[in-house]
């Protein structure tokens, strides 16, 4: 019994020693900004891939195939070592904020490829007749996409988009490779200095991510049912 209390006290002392919640907060912010960035870029890419202009379709497909098939770690490392260290791309004067923004950029360009493909799968749920009817009343490509195709495509894409957002949330840990002080980096430091409670350290972060991600899954399941287009 004493041993257990001792172990528990040792575990609790972790939270005084390390800012676990602060680290999670960094990941939440990474996920939030990268979600916005990847949704915007991914929507533009999806529009390019369904556009009537062959060169835009080609460019969209090339982007997706390059970024979807490149490991995220390499993209983040390239951001820091290539864009920042070599090419002097500076996104903020503050040292830490700069790395944070580079990580958001890397996460956004990577996940935009998956967002694009999710939206394209949503576009495939929209019958061809919807686009034909839109064209028949005189809407050209962009208005037809904005008013008729995309609103239905997004509703059909909620579940795959949710999967992409879940992956994005967990992939924010890769930002550790870009020198952002977040959970994965903190966990390694904790393991190094507090190997006495190593199992609890793993468990803490695992549970932390489950708590973060479950609401995304619940929300997307709810929305995909509620917003489904009746045909």
């Amino acid at each position: 019994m004493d041993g257990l209390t001792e172990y528990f006290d040792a575990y609790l002392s972790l939270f005084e020693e390390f800012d676990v919640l602060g680290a999670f907060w960094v990941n939440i912010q990474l996920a939030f900004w990268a979600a916005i960035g990847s949704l915007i870029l991914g929507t533009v890419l999806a529009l390019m891939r369904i556009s009537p202009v062959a060169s835009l379709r080609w460019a969209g497909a090339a982007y997706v195939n390059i970024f979807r098939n490149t490991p995220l770690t390499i993209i983040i490392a390239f951001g820091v070592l290539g864009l920042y260290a070599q090419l002097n791309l500076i996104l903020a004067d503050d040292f830490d904020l700069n790395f944070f923004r580079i990580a958001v950029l890397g996460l956004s360009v990577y996940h935009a490829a998956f967002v694009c493909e999710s939206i394209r799968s949503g576009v495939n749920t929209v019958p061809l007749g919807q686009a034909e009817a839109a064209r028949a009343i005189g809407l050209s490509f962009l208005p037809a996409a904005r008013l008729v195709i995309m609103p239905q495509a997004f509703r059909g894409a909620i579940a795959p988009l949710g999967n992409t957002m879940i992956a994005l949330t967990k992939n924010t840990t890769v930002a550790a490779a870009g020198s952002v002080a977040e959970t994965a980096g903190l966990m390694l430091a904790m393991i190094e200095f507090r190997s006495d409670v190593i199992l609890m350290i793993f468990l803490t972060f695992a549970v932390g991510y489950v708590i973060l991600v479950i609401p995304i899954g619940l929300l997307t399941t709810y929305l995909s049912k509620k917003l489904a287009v009746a045909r």
Partner: protein
Amino acid sequence: MTSDSSASTVPASNSADGTEPLVSLKNVNKHFGELHVLKDINLEVKRGEVVVVIGPSGSGKSTLCRAINRLETIDDGDIAIDGNHMPSEGKALAKLRSDVGMVFQAFNLFAHKSVLHNVTLGPVKVRKMKATEAKDLAMSLLERVGVANQSDKLPAQLSGGQQQRVAIARALAMKPKVMLFDEPTSALDPEMINEVLDAMVALAKEGMTMIVVTHEMGFARKAADRVLFMADGQIVEEATPEEFFTNPKSARAKDFLGKILTQ
């Protein structure tokens, strides 16, 4: 591009003598791969004329109808609406399409929008009409086709016949010069066919120029000025409904009528 801009000045001279066709197809050809679906089609439809296109399935009649507003591209030949040659793409094509109403076999109402918004979308976004004005127009058109009481519902909540009547109202809201109907009753349950045909007959009586692909011989008899019989991508026979149904000339037409009229 150059031919488009010069053509757009033509309508004034067209309407002067009143005999220029509203829709004109000259030597139109189209292939689907090896299949020659439209073979050298020549067709002129006058203002106010109602033309019914009939023929066996696979004869190219739907393709012909869809080619008129370029939902199907053509390989060669020329299609003109009111003297304006069909542009191949872009804003000019969208502009011309806005003058050509289209009613589809599968209705194709915008599934995420209410009945009312289905009808107001074109006037507001294409014609830049004020929202209140568009709503009045939409409600009067929905009233005319008998579905005004359904205006707040989503398309999926309506019967097929009601959906198709909304689709007619949606097309009319653009104040089109000509209406194309691509087998408008083929996807309907039998008891709903007449409500749609009645709306179409009323439209024909009001003088709308119509090109109707259909299997409804009753509609052809009642409302058509001219019947086109298509087979194997060609217009085989062209006559008034009376003449066509009582005295078809070609063997293909006799055979076709024999099969459908004995039902």
